[in-house]
Structure formats: structure tokens, C-alpha cells
């Protein structure tokens, strides 16, 4: 595996990001919006409680789509060493990433224009797909020996 140090630094950072995105409920608060965990994410997420998952009676610090993306990034990051072990060649990484981004825009727009109504589950799954695609698009940096 190459870039091992960066891999582990980012693994810690992504784990922290996912943990903190769980929001105020984990810390015994009834809300996340003005909790310090919510303040961390307020510049990147609308944090609407009606579109967020709940944990310990409080909405998470991010909405369900953002949580899916963050969790997906972490899951994808954890998969990278496995891909390295089987010497997987990820040639379509950026194409899959672009497809995942287009899916988000399509889902958001379709919902906005009233063609369909997405749910917390669909948003988590689509967000998760994007997150995994982000991590896997970078996977070859960590086991392709042509890159340092």
C-alpha cells in the first residue's frame, strides 16, 4: 500500500466527520442545530430536521443525504485496503463518480419539481453511493505503485 500515512490520517478524519455528524443526540442534547456538532456542519448542510435521521431523540447534525455521503466516504475508504489486497484496477473510478453526482442532481431536481418524493432512506442510499464513489475514485493512489 502506498501513501499509507495520508491514508490513516484521512481515515481518522473521516471517522471523526461521520461520528460528529451524528449530532447532538449522542451528547445528550435535544437538538443539533445550535449544538456544537451542528455548528460544525452548518456551512455545508441545510440541517433541516424534517429531512434528517434521528438519533437518541435528536436530529443528526446533517440531513440524511449528507450523512449518506459522509458514511459512504468512510465505507469506501475502509474498502481501499481490500482492493489493494486483490490488486483491483479501478479504471472507471471517475466515470462512476460523475454518474453518482448526476444521480444526486437528478434526484434533487426531480423532488424539487414534484416528479417524485424522495425519502430519508433513498437519500441515504444515493448519498452513500456518491460517498463510496468518491473514495474509490481515489483508491489507486493507495496501491498503484506508479503514484507516490
Amino acid at each position: 500500500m502506498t501513501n499509507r500515512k495520508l491514508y490513516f490520517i484521512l481515515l481518522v478524519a473521516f471517522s471523526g466527520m461521520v461520528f460528529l455528524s451524528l449530532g447532538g443526540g449522542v451528547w445528550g442534547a435535544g437538538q443539533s442545530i445550535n449544538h456544537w456538532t451542528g455548528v460544525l456542519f452548518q456551512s455545508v448542510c441545510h440541517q433541516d430536521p424534517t429531512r434528517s435521521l434521528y438519533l437518541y431523540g435528536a436530529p443528526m447534525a446533517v440531513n440524511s443525504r449528507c450523512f449518506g455521503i459522509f458514511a459512504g466516504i468512510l465505507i469506501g475508504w475502509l474498502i481501499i485496503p481490500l482492493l489493494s489486497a486483490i490488486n483491483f484496477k479501478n479504471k472507471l473510478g471517475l466515470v462512476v463518480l460523475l454518474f453518482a453526482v448526476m444521480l444526486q442532481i437528478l434526484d434533487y431536481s426531480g423532488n424539487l419539481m414534484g416528479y417524485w418524493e424522495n425519502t430519508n432512506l433513498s437519500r441515504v442510499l444515493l448519498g452513500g453511493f456518491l460517498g463510496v464513489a468518491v473514495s474509490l475514485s481515489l483508491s489507486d493512489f493507495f496501491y498503484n505503485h506508479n503514484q507516490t
Partner: protein
Amino acid sequence: MEEEIQTQEDPKYGIGDYMPSAAIVGVIFSLISFATGLFFGYQQINSEPTGSFFSPFMISSGVICLVSALAGLLAVWHFTKEVSPKLKLGQGAVLGFLTGAIIAILSVAFSELWILLFDPEYTEKILSSLIANIEEMELPSAQKDDMIDAYAEGFQQSSLRQLFMGIPITGLINLITALIGVKIFAEKPEEKF
């Protein structure tokens, strides 16, 4: 001579090398974020409360997040065009985080300036509009009260808190897009046989 070759093969950059790209892209994207937020903010102020999730304020959050996430990618593109085409993954990560931090700081600074110089009641007007919209939502009244309290407290928090708390996540998101930027734009080292 050997050292020069080493520098070319394995370039080392300091903060001063990253700053032009991070600052230019950071300033541009924070201005875009600020202008977008302001546009949707006044749309929110002038809109009738519908109780819908898709208020202008909420739409602006999604748009700003999507746009500002691209800053890390573009900072790497700028760096590879203007400074050096050689950029390692870790160096791209630093550049991306730095760009995100600049966006987080300048976005808060621009908003504060706007409120200070042009519209001191901007925050109150946005908050009133958001509360009016929440009151129209089909939610249990206890949940609506919680949301209103949280928004009211959130809008009163110090800009210094917003500023420093905004840096880690904005930085991390731009770091990720900067890594993608390294993959797309940075020069790949030649294979050695």
C-alpha cells in the same frame, strides 16, 4: 546538481507556494457563496411562508455546498497551471484544506461586512421569515418550537464561533475534492524500470 534533480523529481512546497492558488480560488468561491446566499436570503425574506422544505434559504444551502466543494478541485487545477504541474497527493490535500479554510473565513467576513455596512437588520429579517415558514410546517408543535428556538439561538451565535467551527468540515470537503483534482490535473510521475 543532484539536489536540483531531486527538487524536480520530488518537489517540496511551502505554504507560500500554495497561497496564491488557495487565495485566488478561495476569494472567488467565497464571493460566489456570499452572493448566492445573499440572493436566496432576500428571496427568503420577500417570500410568503408556505411550510415547504424548499424555501429559498434551504435551496441556497444545497447550491452553496455543491459549488464551494469544487473549490479544492479548482485550486489544484490553478496550482498545476501556474505554479508546478507536479503535485503529490499529500500536497494536494494541504492545498485543498487551505482553500476550504479561506472560504470558511471569508464567507463569514463578507456576511458580517454586509450586515455592518448595508443591512444591519438582515439577520433578523431572515430569522423572522424562517420562523414564519416553520410555523406553517406540518410538524408537531413541540418539534416546531424546538426548531424555532434552535434557529433563534443559532442566528445569535458569535461570528467568531461560526468562523472557527466552519473551518474543519469545509476544509475537509475541499481536501477531498482537491485529491480528485490531483488525480485529474497533476502530472503523473514517469514509470521507472
